[in-house]
């Protein structure tokens, strides 16, 4: 499972448009360190996984390409693959192909400065920006001519933020960015320049001097230099040559004034490359003198003398730079013109896929059977050589990784591989456009119908079905958007929409909505102290590194850090509660779905615990747990009396196995991918749902339980076999719909609508079947869906009794003579059997025990006995029934 971006509430994010998906392999650095408990520190590639979200957060900027996902490589040890929005052409290509007019230079420079400003304001460094990372966004086909005429170029910065992703390069085995883009201070960092050579031989980490904002400005200057001269530095200079040149230029400048710039020195060398370069620079100087001055300022040797990104932007604005948001001005367009545009768009076969959020597109792309790794292998970007020579020798580009040792050789030209999308495009084209558009109707209160039976397929099948997911994602995006606008005006519609399944990419939003969490609920987080020492710290320290660690993201340091903060925040916010082992497992799904939004994770977790595991985390929770387990035991007897009896006979009670189930709502028992599906269903249901899940688990294990020995049974529970979640869910749903709610009444949860006698757990344990409330009985009688056996004495019965009840006072008569048919019919129809006694229920208890041990299912006792219904005229017949 990849870390899923939070496209939830707003549902959308950037559309694919004309973009492609690009993949970049990032080789992680090695460190053999271990942490507390002797567990190894996560390798570099894993450490990077947890940080993508930070970058995604700040990307809603038109000048930044979206980082879509980061995945851990399975073929190359310790490598991660970054998937980003990509365009086929970069500024480098335009310069090289002489397609970048001089008149466009200022505009491109301005956009770069704006992108840097945006990043720097958010304290993120672009890191190693190069002309090849400044991508050109093509206009939609219909605007191509228009834009070309205007000589405008839209750019988007790619490959930014690697310093943040890699902890300033510590987690990367390669340097960030190419040597050509590095500022003098980065190159001059030890070892000193004269002996400085790339590649850095024998280093285990590609770390050079850290990237900084001023180094970004330098890199922008180098881009400008190339724009002004029309020379692509990396095409004309090898790394070695460039470094030699830099060396010379820096030496020459050393005696210059404080604010000496390397622009002229570098420009001179570039102009020596081709005659055209000199001529171009001359023209640019003449026409755009200030631009050249600005480039000079960016390339000042001393960092302090370079402008900051905002200053750079301001200078370009002063020089006349403005960014056009769009080439089309709809306000000035005639209706005919608009109509023509719409028509043209309709003609585009790929308009559906182009209008999808780019994150959705990547998700669907992986569903369409494609594998990033396979493509990288096929293209030779990643090579696995047979392990004959050097163990598993793996090469990434020209980067050689030989196991873990030192001696990696790299010259970090990391290429972006474009992921082919033909397959997905075809799949989406074949989708009925209506399927995707019906989401509009849904907002008007109608839900679309799916292809016959499609909804009922196993959820894992549906999750792999491109068209199903595409349609569902679009529907839920609309529902969620209207849900948040309408302040939860349509919970029923949303509930119904996710009855069949929840699309993984919409889960975060759906869960928030189902849990009734609004964005405001996150506000409390900031006030909570998640840093100071807490009594549970030691336990958290040892539990978090063991929590759902088969899930890659959960092993990353940022996940550990965040989980700890989340748990501490929850404990802080709930002084009544304490940390019980298992709370960590329960918190994990909320963390994963709200990875960059701990306040939201906390709000969801709080709402969840309040609804499904209320009071389990009290310091003294024994009475709560005992009551819960007693009710669970009653439910087993109701659903499967034979199984109940069989387990009871070997003294195998829920205390022995079910505590982790209910304490963590199965979070400590099921692997995450299964747990999410269970919770998808759970969140639509009330507080008693986990009890039904528990019974469904037992039903699935039933064949191994009946007739087994105590040891075999408990072994089975200690190491649960692979459970079929679909079956568990369908059983659970069936039971949840069928079993009267009062049968799972929990005194602690105080559910509305039922008047039930409150018993202690110890008292409850003396019953072997559930109780039925008066309200449920009324309902069942009205639906004629209950068999009522009155065990009071005949005189009492004849004085007044419940309609259609049968008197069976001689409860010790095990033959069931007169009620045999009644019981059989009730069971065949899956109707509850309700035993009516006097208020003390002594006889009812005895009789229910007899019935249950005879394998009769659906046995219940009327809570409060006959007295409870005496004054309900609708139920009672007086003096009749002889």
């Amino acid at each position, binding site marked *: 499972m990849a870390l899923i971006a939070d496209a939830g509430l707003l549902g959308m994010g950037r559309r694919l448009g004309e973009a492609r998906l690009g993949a970049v392999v990032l080789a992680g650095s090695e460190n053999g360190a271990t942490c507390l*408990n*002797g*567990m*190894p520190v996560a390798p570099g590639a894993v450490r990077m996984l947890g940080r993508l979200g930070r970058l995604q957060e700040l990307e809603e900027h038109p000048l930044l390409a979206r980082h879509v996902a980061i995945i851990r490589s399975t073929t190359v040890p310790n490598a991660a693959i970054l998937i980003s929005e990509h365009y086929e052409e970069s500024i480098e290509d335009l310069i090289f192909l002489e397609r970048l007019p001089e008149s466009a230079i200022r505009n491109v420079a301005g956009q770069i400065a704006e992108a840097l400003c945006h990043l720097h304001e958010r304290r993120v460094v672009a890191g190693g920006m190069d002309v090849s990372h400044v991508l050109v966004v093509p206009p939609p086909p219909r605007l191509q001519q228009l834009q070309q005429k205007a000589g405008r170029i839209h750019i988007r910065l790619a490959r930014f933020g690697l310093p943040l992703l890699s902890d300033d390069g510590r987690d990367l085995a390669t340097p960030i960015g190419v040597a050509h883009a590095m500022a003098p201070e980065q190159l001059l960092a030890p070892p000193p320049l004269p002996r400085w050579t790339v590649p850095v031989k024998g280093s285990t980490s590609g770390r050079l001097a850290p990237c900084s904002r001023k180094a970004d400005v330098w890199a922008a200057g180098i881009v400008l230099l190339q724009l002004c001269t029309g020379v692509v530095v990396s095409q004309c200079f090898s790394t070695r040559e460039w470094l030699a040149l830099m060396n010379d230029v820096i030496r020459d400048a050393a005696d210059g004034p404080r604010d000496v710039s390397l622009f002229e020195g570098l420009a001179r060398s570039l102009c020596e490359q081709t005659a055209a370069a000199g001529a171009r620079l001359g023209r640019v100087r003449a026409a755009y003198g200030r631009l050249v001055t600005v480039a000079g300022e960016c390339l000042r040797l001393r960092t302090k003398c370079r402008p900051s990104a905002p200053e750079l932007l301001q200078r370009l604005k002063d020089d006349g730079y403005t960014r056009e948001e769009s080439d089309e001005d709809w306000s000035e367009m005639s209706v005919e013109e608009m109509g023509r545009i719409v028509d043209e768009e309709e003609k585009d076969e790929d308009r559906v896929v182009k209008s999808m959020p780019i994150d959705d597109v990547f998700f669907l792309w992986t569903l369409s059977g494609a594998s990033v790794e396979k493509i990288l292998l096929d293209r030779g970007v990643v090579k696995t050589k047979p392990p004959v020579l050097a163990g598993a020798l793996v090469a990434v580009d020209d980067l050689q990784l030989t196991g873990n040792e030192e001696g990696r050789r790299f010259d970090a030209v990391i290429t972006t591989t474009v992921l082919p999308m033909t397959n997905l495009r075809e799949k989406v084209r074949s989708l009925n456009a209506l399927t995707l558009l019906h989401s509009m109707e849904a907002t008007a209160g109608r839900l679309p119908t799916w292809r016959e039976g499609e909804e009922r397929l196993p959820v894992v099948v549906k999750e792999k079905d491109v068209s199903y997911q595409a349609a569902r994602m679009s529907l839920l995006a609309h529902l969620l958007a209207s849900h948040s606008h309408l302040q939860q005006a349509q919970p029923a519609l949303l509930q119904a929409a996710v009855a069949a399944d929840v699309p993984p990419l919409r889960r975060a939003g759906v869960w928030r909505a189902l849990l009734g969490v609004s964005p405001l609920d996150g506000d409390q987080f900031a006030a909570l102290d998640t840093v100071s020492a807490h009594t549970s710290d030691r*336990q958290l320290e*040892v*539990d978090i*590194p*063991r*929590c*759902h*660690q*088969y899930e890659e993201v959960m*092993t990353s340091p940022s996940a550990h850090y965040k989980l700890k903060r989340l748990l501490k925040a929850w404990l802080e916010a709930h002084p009544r509660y*304490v940390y*019980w*082992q*298992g709370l*960590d*497992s329960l918190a994990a799904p909320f963390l994963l779905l709200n990875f960059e939004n701990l306040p939201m994770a906390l709000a969801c977790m709080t709402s969840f615990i309040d609804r499904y595991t209320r009071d389990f985390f009290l*310091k003294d929770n*024994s009475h709560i747990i*005992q009551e819960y387990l007693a009710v669970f035991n009653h439910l087993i007897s109701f659903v499967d009396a034979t199984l109940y009896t069989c387990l009871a006979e070997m*003294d*195998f*009670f829920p*205390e*022995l*196995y079910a*505590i*982790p189930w209910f*304490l*963590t709502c199965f979070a*400590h028992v099921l692997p995450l991918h299964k747990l999410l599906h269970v919770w998808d269903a759970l969140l639509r249901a009330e507080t008693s749902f986990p009890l039904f899940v528990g019974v469904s688990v037992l039903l699935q294990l039933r064949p191994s339980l009946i007739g087994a*020995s*105590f*040891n075999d049974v*408990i*072994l089975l*529970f*200690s*190491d649960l076999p692979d459970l079929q979640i679909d079956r568990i869910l369908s059983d659970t749903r069936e039971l949840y719909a069928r079993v009267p709610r009062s049968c799972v009444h929990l005194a602690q949860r105080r559910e509305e609508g039922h008047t039930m006698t409150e018993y202690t757990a110890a008292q409850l*344990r003396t019953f072997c079947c559930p109780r039925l409330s008066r309200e449920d009985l009324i309902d069942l009688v009205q639906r004629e869906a209950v068999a009522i056996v009155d065990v009071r004495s005949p005189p009492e019965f004849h004085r007044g009794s419940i309609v259609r009840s049968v008197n069976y006072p001689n409860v010790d008569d095990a033959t069931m003579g007169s009620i045999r048919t009644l019981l059989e019919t009730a069971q065949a129809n899956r109707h509850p059997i309700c035993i009516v006694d006097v208020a003390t229920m002594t006889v009812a208890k005895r009789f229910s025990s007899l019935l249950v041990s005879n394998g009769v299912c659906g046995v219940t006792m009327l809570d409060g006995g006959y007295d409870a219904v005496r004054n309900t005229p609708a139920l009672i017949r007086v003096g009749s029934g002889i």
Partner: protein
Amino acid sequence: MAARGGAAARPASAAGNKTCQFKLVLLGESAVGKSSLVLRFVKGQFHEYQESTIGAAFLTQTVCLDEATVKFEIWDTAGQERYHSLAPMYYRGAQAAIVVYDITNQESFQKAKNWASPNIVMALAGNKADMANKRAVDYEEAQAYAEDNGLLFMETSAKTSMNVTDVFMAIAKKLPLGAGPEPARDTVDPSQSTQRASGGSCCK
């Protein structure tokens, strides 16, 4: 609640050699490696990220001695102190216990000293011996403590499997193999030492 523990005499038999069944419980602070020791002993595996135990887990393993085959019913309990209120249910009727501490954690050793029961076979295991460079508990100190209290003692490593089988074997050798079903024994609960159990070893 269960009226009796899982160790009620459930005869097991093997051709020729007699088979004895004993209930053994693992005790000790959280994250000292109880589950890891059991996993190593029973399945020969080690998980770097062994998940924490809630309540208890149950496994069985058989070892062969010259005179008998011993089948252990192993109850691996939760280490967090809060769960101790549940523990009696799990260790009721145990005839043997391994109290585990982590040699890199002094506190876990102090906590290990809280578990004591004169009437069952007990071993003290100083686990994570592979991490001797971070040792916080002296071998000698632990050994002296074990001697004074009549406990078997070994330093173990679930990771390298050092001494893991040996601890269980040592316990098996000290168990009363000759005896028939035994009368109830005291439990290992320090606070409720009068609790009775219906379990006993059973040999045939």
